């Protein structure tokens, strides 16, 4: 079985631009979560979606938004990029009735 996949692998943007990151969960997993990991820190929760509905939101500004599609894949959108948005963005999927999260390889976003 394929693991969680994310695209793109790396991305370079300039301040003020918009970015869309994509995630495909493990087949059969209906829950997707997004995390931001700044260098030297642990991942920080951004969003969780289950069955296309937002089930949780971390302490991030409204510039961050996400959605989940009928095939359970997900997009994370960030508007008006700031230098501080530079980080590794991680997607994780979770099978129903378990608490284990399976992380993808992440998307490295650099904002110049």
């Amino acid at each position, binding site marked *: 079985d394929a693991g969680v996949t994310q695209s793109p692998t790396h991305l370079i943007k300039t301040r003020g631009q918009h970015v869309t990151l994509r995630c495909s969960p493990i087949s059969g997993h209906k829950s997707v979560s997004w995390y931001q990991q700044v260098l030297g820190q642990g991942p920080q929760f951004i969003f*969780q979606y289950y069955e296309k509905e937002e089930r949780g939101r971390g302490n991030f500004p409204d510039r961050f938004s996400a959605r989940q599609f009928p095939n359970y894949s997900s997009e994370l959108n960030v508007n008006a990029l700031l230098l501080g948005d530079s980080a590794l963005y991680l997607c994780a999927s979770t099978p129903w009735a378990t608490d284990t999260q399976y*992380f*993808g390889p992440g998307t490295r976003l650099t904002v110049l």
Partner: protein
Amino acid sequence: SQKIEQNSEALNIQEGKTATLTCNYTNYSPAYLQWYRQDPGRGPVFLLLIRENEKEKRKERLKVTFDTTLKQSLFHITASQPADSATYLCALGGHSGAGSYQLTFGKGTKLSVIP
């Protein structure tokens, strides 16, 4: 606010010895605690989960303990090998149900196993 502290940013240990990593938390009543391994530039990989009503879990050379009174978890790697060198993350989770799986992570401890 919730706070998770992992005892040290870096830990060096000789090959063959037991590595012990500590995770302390405050202002939190987690339903479970998880340990993940993360290699540079890659996503975390799940290792072990221990629930609030469990004291100890084992998996091969790994052992985790969970003391909800002390608000502390210890993570042990016995007979450590250079391949165990990585950053280890502690993560706390609330009560699941209705699809809530938010994890709160510590900063991690970078373990280096010296041959």
